[in-house]
């Protein structure tokens, strides 16, 4: 005991003079700034946020939006502040979740008139929603809940039944909002993002997971995915395609955000070791090589923030749009010259290789150097039974419809 005391006193005596000469060690950087020290990017970039009180339809500048000849964009509904993910029921009810709010809303149509109703309140980050066979599934920060026979119970959906819990292992800051998709196998697919910009994730973080809808049994289907907030299954091959946000603070033009395709269960997509398939991470790159991960099917551009994506299977649009991917790019703040804030069209050939990547709806960005550079931010895409599509805009709390006629 005395020996130990003497030792620590000695250590203190040695350490003290050195401590007195050097300043206290810097506190760790906040989560969003983490990893920023190895870049020359300016420290004046700041995050954007939705207009929490929304924008009325009359104030939406539709004439600024550009689409190919024959296509038309209209405001489908306003009054859904911070609208994010969308799902549609068998009877045509459109469900909308969000990331910074606490409600899920249902939009119903009667005699040509649409009405918006809040059906679920007080949820925690209900960003993920999907409808399947009468049931609405909602993914919150920590859990997934099912609401059976939802369209018959819009006025009183009840508390729902828990599918799986414990989906936010650290309960800290980070990418804890989820995207939810229904697989062809009848299981729920969703993301758990990286807790920080760039870090070594826990076992079930930076991954896409799959949950059994009745037992709640979890499986990891993809790893090394920093955060995916958009996914869909190819109508023919049934493969899972998903968007992924790459890390920040490596530079203005790297690394690219990604469009990925899952070819085998448990496949590794590189994070945090390798970005865009060919750039080793400055911190973690020494622990693994890019050769050990699957490169993206398409590099989407740096900081474009790809979110919802859907394969187009309708018959309203021209035939060449069949099985194309329509993808929303939220546009991001971590770059001086801004990029994104649009809908993109991705054309695949019969082997699933990307043939074309081109704008589908543009015009939300008015000046790529202005602050803000945009007046709207697309989030998710949903196909309606008539073959037209809806897309949500969380900045304005508006849902738009894109239709086509010759």
């Amino acid at each position, binding site marked *: 005991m005395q020996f130990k005391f003497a030792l620590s006193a000695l250590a203190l005596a040695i350490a003290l003079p050195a401590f007195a000469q050097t300043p206290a060690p810097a*506190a*760790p*950087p*906040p*989560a*969003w*700034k983490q990893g920023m020290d190895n870049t020359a990017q300016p*420290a*004046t*970039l*700041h*995050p*954007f*946020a939705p*207009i*929490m*009180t*929304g*924008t*009325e339809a*009359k*104030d939406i*500048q539709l004439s600024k939006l550009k689409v190919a000849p024959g296509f038309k964009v209209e405001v489908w509904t306003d*009054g859904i*502040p911070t609208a994010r993910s969308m799902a549609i029921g068998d009877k045509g009810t459109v469900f909308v979740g969000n990331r*910074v*709010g*606490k409600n899920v809303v249902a939009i119903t149509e009667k005699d040509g008139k649409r009405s918006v109703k809040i059906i679920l309140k007080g949820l925690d980050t209900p960003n993920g929603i999907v409808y399947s066979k009468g049931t609405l599934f909602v993914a919150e920060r920590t859990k997934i809940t099912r609401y059976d026979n939802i369209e018959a119970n819009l006025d009183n959906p009840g508390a729902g039944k828990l599918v799986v819990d414990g989906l936010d292992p650290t309960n800290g*800051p980070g990418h804890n909002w989820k995207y939810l998709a229904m697989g062809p196998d009848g299981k729920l697919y969703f993301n758990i993002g990286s807790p920080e910009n760039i870090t070594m994730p826990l076992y079930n973080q930076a991954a896409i997971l799959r949950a059994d809808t009745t037992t709640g049994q979890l499986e990891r289907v993809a790893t090394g995915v920093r955060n995916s907030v958009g996914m869909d299954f190819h109508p023919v091959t049934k493969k899972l395609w998903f968007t992924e946000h790459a890390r920040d603070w490596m530079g203005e033009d790297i690394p690219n955000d990604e469009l990925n395709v899952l070819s085998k269960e448990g496949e590794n997509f590189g994070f945090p070791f390798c970005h865009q398939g060919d750039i080793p991470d400055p911190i973690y790159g020494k622990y693994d090589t890019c050769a050990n991960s699957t490169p993206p099917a398409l590099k989407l551009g740096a900081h474009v923030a790809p979110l919802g994506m859907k394969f187009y299977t309708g018959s309203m649009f021209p035939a060449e749009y069949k099985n194309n991917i329509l993808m929303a790019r939220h546009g991001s703040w971590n770059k001086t010259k801004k990029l994104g804030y649009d809908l993109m069209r991705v054309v695949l050939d019969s082997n699933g290789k990307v043939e074309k990547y081109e704008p589908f709806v543009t015009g939300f960005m008015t000046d790529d150097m*202005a*602050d*803000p550079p945009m*007046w709207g931010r697309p989030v998710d895409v949903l196909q309606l039974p008539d073959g037209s599509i809806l897309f949500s805009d969380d900045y304005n709390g508006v849902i738009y419809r894109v239709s086509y006629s010759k």
Partner: protein
Amino acid sequence: MFQVSSMKQVAAGLLAAAAFLSSSPLVQAADLEAGKTLSQTCVACHGPGGNSIIPGTPSISGSAAQAISMQLFNYREGNRKNAQMSPMAENLTNPEMNNLAAYFASEKVAPPTHQASAESIKVGPALTAQYNCTQCHGPALKGIQHIPRLAGQQYEYLLAQLQGFKAHTRYDMDGNMTSAMSAVKESDIPILADYIAALEYK
């Protein structure tokens, strides 16, 4: 940029705020006159034009409209709770919040009444840069979009908010302030508040 229909709705106050309006589609359409009419209740506590002279009650002039409407929204939705503010926001509609926000955003910021210590004035600029205040709130801490104006804000209000973020008790929509405050030393919080409260809005 301006639409004819919305020009008609916006009354005389528009011209003064034209430079600001041109960059904000939201404010372009909001109704300043309607906002001013509604603001009579607000100014009883927040002061004429939203420049507070009550310790602990924040000034609301000079922030961007998006920042003001966001806080009204937070009170209505129960994200932030306050005995005075919560009932005030309870029955406001989204367009009413947008109009109020547009009005207070267009009001002139009064010079600060707070006097900072010489020591705070000396270390303030380095501290606000080191702790990333200036990254989001801007080099002059004037705020932008949803990020509120800090320069010249009430000292007690600043102190309470910073302490609240540090203690994880103040509502934080995207976690950025909680995250930023995690790196701030407790003993630096009063220095930050002292420096910022006396900072002229310019």
